[in-house]
């Protein structure tokens, strides 16, 4: 029991996590490349043409994984933030910091690909639909987090302030989601609903799943690489970084 605890705390120090992050990053890079390659092949050559939307529907294979990742990453960041506040470990905050740009990127990609889908399907780039609007708000939450981090120079203060923001945000995300949904459905208007075929074809579902896993691996790879950079930037004057001395890093 005790030995396991010690082990856990050992890896919560940036110095010992630094080499580990490299290994994780390398492994997930390989997984990501393989999965995304397979996913892309299936998206274009295996999945059949949709009888209603023609080839246009293929956007789903990037759109949905990007949307899912953007939401998932925010929750993970909030988890790290909570850990950081409770145990006062620097590494947790660094993990949250490392994830944020990737999450924001996926939120943006979700909006972008959604727009590029909406134009041919609905005839407009943008519609104030509930889901779309809450994705936009999620993007704002990411940007707010990053802006707050950037505005505070003292890294420790930045860690704690942005952790509080993340926790407040994550409490709000479900509230925002349901309120937006309600707002939209209550005064219907001319909004065109996303067509929800739950009878999605098996291959399509499988392809989407593979792409999602690929994006997942990609996020882990990038986050680990970024956390290494963040560690170096923030710990550059500590002895362990100095001992690395630019040599074996």
């Amino acid at each position, binding site marked *: 029991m005790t030995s396991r605890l010690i082990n856990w705390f050992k890896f919560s120090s940036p110095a010992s996590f630094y080499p580990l992050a490299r290994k994780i990053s390398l492994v997930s890079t390989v997984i990501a490349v393989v999965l995304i390659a397979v996913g892309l092949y299936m998206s274009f050559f295996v999945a059949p043409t949709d009888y209603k939307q023609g080839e246009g529907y293929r956007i789903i294979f990037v759109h949905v994984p990007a949307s899912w990742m953007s939401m998932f990453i925010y929750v993970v960041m909030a988890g790290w933030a909570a850990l950081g506040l409770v145990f006062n470990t620097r590494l947790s905050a660094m993990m949250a910091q490392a994830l944020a740009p990737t999450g924001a990127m996926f939120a943006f990609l979700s909006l972008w690909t959604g727009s590029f889908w909406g134009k041919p399907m609905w005839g407009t780039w943008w519609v104030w639909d509930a889901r779309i609007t809450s994705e936009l708000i999620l993007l704002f939450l990411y940007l707010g987090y990053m802006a707050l981090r950037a505005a505070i120079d003292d890294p420790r203060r930045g860690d704690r302030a942005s952790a509080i923001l993340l926790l407040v945000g994550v409490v709000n995300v479900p509230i925002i989601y349901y309120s937006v949904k309600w707002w939209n459905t209550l005064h219907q208007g001319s909004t065109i609903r996303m067509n929800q075929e739950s009878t999605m074809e098996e291959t399509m579902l499988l392809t989407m799943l593979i792409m999602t896993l690929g994006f997942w691996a990609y996020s882990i790879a990038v986050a680990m690489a970024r956390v290494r950079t963040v560690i170096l930037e923030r710990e550059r*004057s500590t002895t362990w970084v100095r001992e690395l001395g630019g040599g074996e890093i």
Partner: protein
Amino acid sequence: MIDANTEPSLQIQALCCVRGDRVLFRDLSFAVQGGELLHLKGHNGSGKTTLLRALAGLLLPESGEVRWAGQNIRSLREEYSRHLLYLGHLNGIKGDLTAVENLRISSVLDGLQLSEKRAWEVLGEIGLKGHEDLPSKHLSQGQKRRVALARLLVNRARVWILDEPFTALDVDAVQLLQEVIRQHVANGGVAIITTHQEVAMIGEHTRTISLGRADV
């Protein structure tokens, strides 16, 4: 819960404070007992303010801890604040309130009741006669400092942490303040101060700690 009658004592253990990428001090350990005056010395930028803020619990040190009567001040929180009076580079008074109002508010928040009459008296003592009822933003630099220092005359905290209390004060006020601090220490309180002025801090119970290396 700390008994109010225990001997007050502040222990600093292996404290290390870092600002940016500069280590201001590391492995700093000492203790201060009731009846002692600690004079913190050091050139500009040696980390005196940083240390005082860490002692007051305003700043989370990089490592090490500060103990009050044996317990870490982080876990004591408000309990420790009850025994503490900190006065920093900023005066901590509201420009829109008069000196009297400022003094009474801070007393209430410190957990004391201060009648209006007593507040006037105290302000008179500290040399603000005739200015008690002026919004304190109109006061001069030194008068503002006096309003802040008036808290020393009503407060019953055991530990005083004063960061350059003498700045902006004229000669009379400096003398008065010295006397007040001496009284406090004589009554068994702890006082930790910094100052660059050559002030005769009286008494056998004065200790000096110097921060900072000789270079820089």
